């Protein structure tokens, strides 16, 4: 799936001028602070906001093209949209809400079965009820189901977790992963939360002041120091795609294979070979100049310093590259400026990265069922 977006529009004192192409078959996250223009861009893709100039196309199907005077109305684009608020029709039952858009999908393109969606989202027991009697989490699941049952070509999700509390978010996230993996639905997901990017994204478009500042694979984008002023100062860390290699049942451990080596984490109940995404926070990584001996830390990786982010004052974030080239993986370490001086660290310096196994809890493990298709 190729999504081309090139849009310009003035909104009051704010200028949208975003341009990007994404090849995502999975989830593309539009990431940026609030006010970066993410929602406006998504509204333009959906056809709810008209750009002043530009072009929007999905797999060569043109939705908007100012040069050729093309502006397909929203109802003919067949792009699903899950909004920040649920926007369910209050006068209809959950069942009628869910089926609202289905009649408009051409018979040949109804590849998604309503029953499968209802089953996947776990909303079968809600069908006879009215939206007002549902909890916020249930409403949002119904809203996702309503968009899916219309069999869209692309699903837009604008911070669908924004109105939910932390517990409810954890409840919805697995469903979003499942719709990508089980229904093969391409998704453009708007978020300002780095945890959601880490967990869901295949591709990331970093938005800042109405522009697409960077586009790329999540591992590359989230480890770039230069983008951090745009994305906000979030908890620094590395996102690593791994596969389950083996289990150690006696000590309750799981070994994960990643390009930088073998990672030991608390037991994860997944079969061998299952893809897993791990986030390693910078503060859980220390560095040593010499190979450490007789220590409790299980994860020690040899690597080198790539970049030093010194602007933070007494605390410094190091970007490391671990593993033997060309098989390497990015890693972040947060240490004091004094340690940098004491160890004489500079870009290119050889170091050992020490990762505490206990730092990898279940929350940082995102399931990745489907291998990413990218060319």
């Amino acid at each position, binding site marked *: 799936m190729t999504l081309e977006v090139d849009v310009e529009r003035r909104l009051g004192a704010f200028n949208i001028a975003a341009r990007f192409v994404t090849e995502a078959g999975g989830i593309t996250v539009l990431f940026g602070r609030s006010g970066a223009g993410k929602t406006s861009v998504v509204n333009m893709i959906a056809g709810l906001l008209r750009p002043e100039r530009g072009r929007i196309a999905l797999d060569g199907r043109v939705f908007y093209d100012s040069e050729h005077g093309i502006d397909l109305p929203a*109802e003919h684009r067949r792009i699903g949209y899950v909004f920040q608020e649920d926007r369910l*029709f209050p006068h209809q039952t959950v069942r009628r809400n869910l089926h609202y858009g289905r009649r408009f999908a051409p018979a040949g393109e109804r590849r998604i079965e309503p029953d499968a969606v209802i089953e996947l989202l776990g909303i079968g027991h809600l069908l006879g009820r*009215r939206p007002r009697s549902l909890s916020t989490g249930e409403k949002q699941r119904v809203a996702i189901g309503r968009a899916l049952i219309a069999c869209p070509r692309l699903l837009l999700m604008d911070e669908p977790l924004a109105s939910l509390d932390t517990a409810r978010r954890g409840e919805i996230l697995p469903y979003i992963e499942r719709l990508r993996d089980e229904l093969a639905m391409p998704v453009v997901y708007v978020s300002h939360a780095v945890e959601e990017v880490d967990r869901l994204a295949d591709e990331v478009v970093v938005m800042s002041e109405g522009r697409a500042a960077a586009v790329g694979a999540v591992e590359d984008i989230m480890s770039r120091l230069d983008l951090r002023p745009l994305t906000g100062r979030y908890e620094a860390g590395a996102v690593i795609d791994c596969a389950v290699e083996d289990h150690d049942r006696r000590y309750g451990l799981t070994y994960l294979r990643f390009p930088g080596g073998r990672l030991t984490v608390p037991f994860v109940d997944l079969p061998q070979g299952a893809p897993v995404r791990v986030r390693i926070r910078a503060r859980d990584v220390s560095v040593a100049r010499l190979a450490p001996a007789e220590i409790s830390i299980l994860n020690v990786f040899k690597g080198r310093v790539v970049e030093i982010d010194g602007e933070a004052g007494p605390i410094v974030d190091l970007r490391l590259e671990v593993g033997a080239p060309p098989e390497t993986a990015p890693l972040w370490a947060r240490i004091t400026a004094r340690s940098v001086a004491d160890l004489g660290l500079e870009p290119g310096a050889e170091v050992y990265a020490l990762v505490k196994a206990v730092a990898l809890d279940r929350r940082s493990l995102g399931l990745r069922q489907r291998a990413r298709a990218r060319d």
Partner: protein
Amino acid sequence: MGVLSPAETEALLLSLRVAFWSVLWSLPLGVFVAWLLARCSFPGKTLLDGVVHLPLVLPPVVVGYALLLLLGRRGPLGIWLEDWLGLTVAFTWRGAAVAAAVMAFPLMVRAVRLSLDAVDPRLEAAARTLGAGRLWVFATVTLPLTAPGILTGVILAYARSLGEFGATITFVSNIPGETRTLPLAIYTLTQVPGGEAGALRLAILSAVVALLALLASELLARRIKAGLGGP
């Protein structure tokens, strides 16, 4: 109808019929105009708004006279109706319905418009992303959510139509069995010696009809509220 005299029955049925047709015709037009005013911007919108509200501020006699000029036998619209549709409006019960509809129209439009303003346009946008065209969105989302306002508009218009006097008597006169509705019948009785008792009977009858209409609308409103998912 043993309680009522033939003349009273006639006036009652005529009033109900006039009010019924008045509301039936002004309802779709009223919803359309309310939608135009609530959701569209176009040149002349303020003018349309003014014209729609004119019957609310003009003396009813003036409205009746204007209708007579327009729709009378020699009025431009009257001739057209006569020639093309074979319809005579002036001095017939149809004319009474037209007069009632015009007088009740602003009430209908105001009620529907208020209700339309309260419908969240974001719901309509959501419906469009699901593939529904504008007309379908209007019929399946906007209209059902406007139902309480439409009901209010219908009740107000119906009550106004039942009570219409000034424009009716000016436009279609006071013809027994044709244009003599309840208010006109009461007025006639008060103008003849010894008619007070008859006038009182009709006044009570008017009150009963109004109460019944209110009761029915209350029941309907409850059902609509339940249909919209509770209060």
